[in-house]
């Protein structure tokens, strides 16, 4: 298929990123993989809240109605027009297939219309690139910890544009465990910020919840379903005996169990790989205990190893990270064909 790829040497690289994998529709323009010129996000959190979780069909419908307008706004804010872009990048997985398809169809048609290359970005990998947008000097190799509502994974990132598998969750993602436990505790959705706030006044050692470290060959994998069940059982037993749970202690103890496992495994990976940096990404990274514990224990056990996590607005899904993740691919002329499809179960280390 003929597709003109006018990537000529004109100095600056301006990539338009598109994101529609879950319940955030986003478009952004990033310069040279680092500098955010615009970063438009429209969240559907409130629409889905009344359903207690993301409804794929509703998410897909919202994406379609918003995405082109967000592109327009992102360009305007960046002071650019479509014809000045160097490439179009899109998250093509993982995520909700119907939602992803809106972004993928939009990116392909735009790329064709303006004769600019199309770049397929792995949404999970893109989360690590949020760090490159806020910290300019990041040393590699790095270990990446991704913790969000849909995914929990550890990766080895030898250099930008390359990513290798270390481990992932076998059942619930960390953020999912937060949401489910918050629901049983009678807190709102999403559960992460609610639990974080309650935990601030609680004793993390009050209740001894289980930590799943798994067998040696799966030492970098995660499992949170046992912990989730333990918390739910604890609450049910307490209520059956007519007792009432101490919300702050419960929140703090649950959170401490999640955080300990995430930190312990990350540190194990840093040691084994001799990494210079830890890059964190995903919505759960907004959790204050995770940031605090990771910093404390890295400082004590791996001096010299740097920790990076994005500012709150770049922790959740956004399109700037998609454009940033596309940059190394742009430099390598790693472009996607117009047959590009959404891949709902794309793995973190899968290369498009």
């Amino acid at each position, binding site marked *: *298929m*003929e*597709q003109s790829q006018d990537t000529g040497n004109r100095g600056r690289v301006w990539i338009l990123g598109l994101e529609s994998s879950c319940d955030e529709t986003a478009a952004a323009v990033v310069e040279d993989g680092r500098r955010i010129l615009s970063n438009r996000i429209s969240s559907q959190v409130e629409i889905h809240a*009344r*359903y207690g979780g993301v*409804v794929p*069909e*509703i998410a*897909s*419908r919202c994406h*379609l*109605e918003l*995405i*082109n*307008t967000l*592109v*327009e706004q992102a360009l305007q804010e960046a002071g650019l027009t*479509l014809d000045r872009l160097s490439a179009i990048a899109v998250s093509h997985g993982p995520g909700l*297939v*119907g939602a992803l*398809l*809106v972004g*993928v*169809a*939009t*990116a*392909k*048609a*735009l790329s*064709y*219309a*303006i*004769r600019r290359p199309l770049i397929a970005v792995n949404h999970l990998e893109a989360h690590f690139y949020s760090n490159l947008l806020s910290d300019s000097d990041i040393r590699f190799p790095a270990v990446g910890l991704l913790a969000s509502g849909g995914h929990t994974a550890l990766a080895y990132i030898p250099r930008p544009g390359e990513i290798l598998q270390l481990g992932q969750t076998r059942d619930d993602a960390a953020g999912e465990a937060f949401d489910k436990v918050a629901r049983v505790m009678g807190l709102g959705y999403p559960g992460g910020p609610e639990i974080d706030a309650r935990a601030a006044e609680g004793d993390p050692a009050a209740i001894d919840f289980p930590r799943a470290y798994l067998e040696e060959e799966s030492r970098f994998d995660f499992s949170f379903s046992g912990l989730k069940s333990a918390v739910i059982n604890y609450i049910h037993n307490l209520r059956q005996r007519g007792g009432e749970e101490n919300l702050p202690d419960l929140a703090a103890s649950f959170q401490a169990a999640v955080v300990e496992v995430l930190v312990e495994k990350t540190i194990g990976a840093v040691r084994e790989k001799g990494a210079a940096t830890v890059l964190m990404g995903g919505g759960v990274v907004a959790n204050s205990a995770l940031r605090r514990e990771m910093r404390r224990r890295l400082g004590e056990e791996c001096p010299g190893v740097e920790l990076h996590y994005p500012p709150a607005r770049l922790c959740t899904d956004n399109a700037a990270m998609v454009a940033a993740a596309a940059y190394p691919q742009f430099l390598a002329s790693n472009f996607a*064909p*117009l*047959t*590009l*499809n*959404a891949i709902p179960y794309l793995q973190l280390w899968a290369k498009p």
Partner: protein
Amino acid sequence: MLILGIDTATRVCSVALLRGDNLLGELTVNIKKTHSGQLMPLVGRLLELCRVEREELEGIAVAAGPGSFTGIRIGVSTARALAQGLAIPAVGVSTLKALAGAVAGVGLLICPLLDARRGEVYAALYRRPAKPPYRLEELVSPGAMELGELLSRAAGYREPVTLLGEGLGTYRREIEGVLGERALPVPLGLNRAALVAWRGRSELEGGLASGYEELVPIYLRRPEAERKLREGR
């Protein structure tokens, strides 16, 4: 006006180029494969075959539904982004009306129908009057309905019914059971982008098409979760 037609609302993935009332070309694929992977390569190939540069396109017409939710979103998203990228107008066309456009005769009862799953069809019943301007008259408005209900309304006219659309293959036996010899299936009466481009033509040429922002799917059905929430109340 050079119009690109797109139809991905059913199992058919189809693109067409229409210049005035002349069909330059059409590529139609009716196999079980994802429209997402096929659509843009088909557009690219069609333009190549017709020796048309993408910048020459002047308008886009897309089957906006009813049909498969995912299918119409692929078509409409593509149409919106092409319109945005090329800075040209785009219109959404009813899948059912586009189908009805395949039947040229006057005075006939025309019934386009698509399988809507869950025991329902997306359908409508039209008649093209015998007097100018021959605009389709709507006897049963487009919607998701039970096949039995549609057939009994159609049978009530005691006239032959011209039927077309993907639902025909699925429900042939039920249709013949009710309409008997009055059921007249249109040969090869499937969705095609040429019909969509044709249907969108007057709106585009008349300068009545709005920007891509106004181009939204015609679902004719609420999301399942929304319906359950309403019924639960």
